[in-house]
């Protein structure tokens, strides 16, 4: 199963959603490293490096998801983790969704996301990355 790093960025301490998602993913068999509150994008990227993360998720409620995501995306690319899928959880307005997709966010999980849909979506992203990595390495895909 995959190793997933989840974090709250900046000073936004609304962590009900991200702690619930962490639990769902653990129960779904994933290894979750929850970095807690008050992280800079640099700190999250370092954790993702050290943990050899397969996927990174950030959670935004009162912070600006577009700003936070752009910084996170750039920082991941800066440390060579540009291929690691970045997902965003939180309340995102329709306008912001468009912007987040342009930033290359792999998935957005808003209010009311069901447990099964979240797990399926994450599984799909992980399979796609494994496939892409294998292709880039020139080795046959495990599928």
């Amino acid at each position: 199963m995959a190793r997933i790093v989840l974090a709250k960025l900046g000073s936004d301490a609304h962590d009900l959603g991200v702690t619930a998602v962490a639990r769902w993913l653990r129960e779904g068999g994933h290894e979750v490293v929850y970095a807690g509150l008050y992280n800079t994008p640099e700190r999250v990227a370092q954790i993702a490096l050290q943990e050899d993360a397969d996927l990174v998720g950030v959670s935004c409620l009162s912070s600006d998801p577009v700003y936070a995501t752009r910084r996170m995306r750039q920082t991941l690319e800066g440390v060579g983790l540009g291929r690691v899928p970045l997902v965003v959880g939180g309340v995102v307005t329709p306008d912001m969704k468009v912007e987040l997709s342009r930033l290359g966010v792999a998935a957005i999980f808003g209010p009311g996301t069901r447990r099964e849909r979240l797990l399926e979506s994450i599984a799909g992203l992980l399979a796609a990355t494994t496939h892409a990595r294998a292709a880039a390495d020139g080795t046959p895909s495990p599928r």
Partner: protein
Amino acid sequence: MSTDRLFDRYLEGERPADYRTLSGIELPPFLADRPSAAAERPGEYPFTRGIHTEMYRQRLWTRRQQSGYGTPRESNERLHYLLRQGATGLNIDTDMATKLGFDPDHPLFEGEVGRQGTSIATLEDMEQLFDGIPLDRVSSTLIVQPPASAPFLAMYLAVARRRGIPPSALIGTIMNCALTQLAGATQQAITHFFPIDFSVRVGLDVMEYCTREMRRWNIVNVNAYNMRETGINAIQEAAFALSLALEYAERLIARGLDADAFAQRMAFFTAAHMDLFEEVAKLRAMRRIWARLMRERLGAKDDRSCWFRTAIQTAALPLTAQEPLNNIVRAAIQTLAAVLGGSQSIHTTSYDEAYALPSEASHRLSIRTQQVIGYETNVVKSADPLGGSHLVEWLTGRLEADILTMMDDIRARGGFVSVFKAGWVEQQIREARFEHMDRVESGDQPVVGVNCFRDEEAEEPKMEFFAYEQEMPEARMRYVREYRARRQAPALQAALDALRRATAAGENVMPPVLAAVEAGATIGEVCRTFGEAIGHTVEG
């Protein structure tokens, strides 16, 4: 659910899935015995039926909508707008940097300055925020927790002094609750920036100072609301808040203050959730418990010291991002619960809360909701209108017993501050929030438009959300740097040195904080000096 299945259910008889209140109390089909508590009267000890004999017949609750965003200048405009719409008190919310005691150019708050509330760093900011607002005629609640509550209040006092208003004439409230202010109340949020014991001490310093110098000012708003928002129930909300308030009171007495000197200036901030009768009963039970604690345990003689006074915000946890217009109905019912429960002031949460800070239009709707209840429904024309109701009196007694049992448990474990530090509160909150999530996920807790009666084909709502000025965070950063550069450095340095010494020596921090603020110190500089004095640095 398919239409066919719905028809079947209607035929069988549509009924609740269970007969429990939100906090799990099993309700009987009906109650026949008239409870003895109905003999109580409003305005008489133990004040179960309200702290005043005539309640809203003589004075409506204060319409106090929380507000604050962007620069102090922008927020000031919104404050004037709210007052024009019929708000009768102000409720100032600051951004996270301000609340946590940092200036807007600190890297942790990059991109977030002025987002969750207004950005206040300097005395000039405070002057702008309250421009044109008479501080002795309009009451303001200042939503800041210790230790930042000390410089924030000092700036408010300095603005008043410059306008010739003495501290004793100021009306309002400093929230000043060390443990429960931060959303979610997760332990990390409370312990990350300052040790709990230090925050509690500064909170008590502020309370003591206000007690001595500001006789019309509320020295603390014990924040039950933010804990309730995590998903804990009404019993936990009341037991946690009352236990914490009792501990603050005992610590003030240990500092040599008389209960009658400060108890009438202590106040609470509680939630009004969806369970209408349980919420009314909760407020009635809290009033009865608090009155008895003050008189029987702390020896307060003055009736006013026994008043449980509370500001109420309607709960945001049951509001939904899906079908957001439904939230207007929810907030109206919650506001009614707050009124029937005898609240002193109300903030009706905006229907767009899940998405953004309120726009002018949603702010106005919140005020209108309260005005419709206050001016059109006549529920205000007799005190404690649900008093004597079999159900409400029974629930009041049942909640009182359950709250007292939990308070005894907390006391046996060493008191609220102690169990908080030990992680017991965190554990209770964690269990409650996951149980809440599971109940919504499974549908055991019906949420209309989310897990039942959901319109799968509905389009996303077209709503105008509040949007920020893109340049604002950058402008605030530039401002605070420019401000720092134009002060008298020697006077400022002397004031900060005096503050450092007084803090390390365990003296009341308020007098040296006032001097530092007058010398031009920012909130960030005052709080950094606190950290230096106690040898605490923030990681990361």
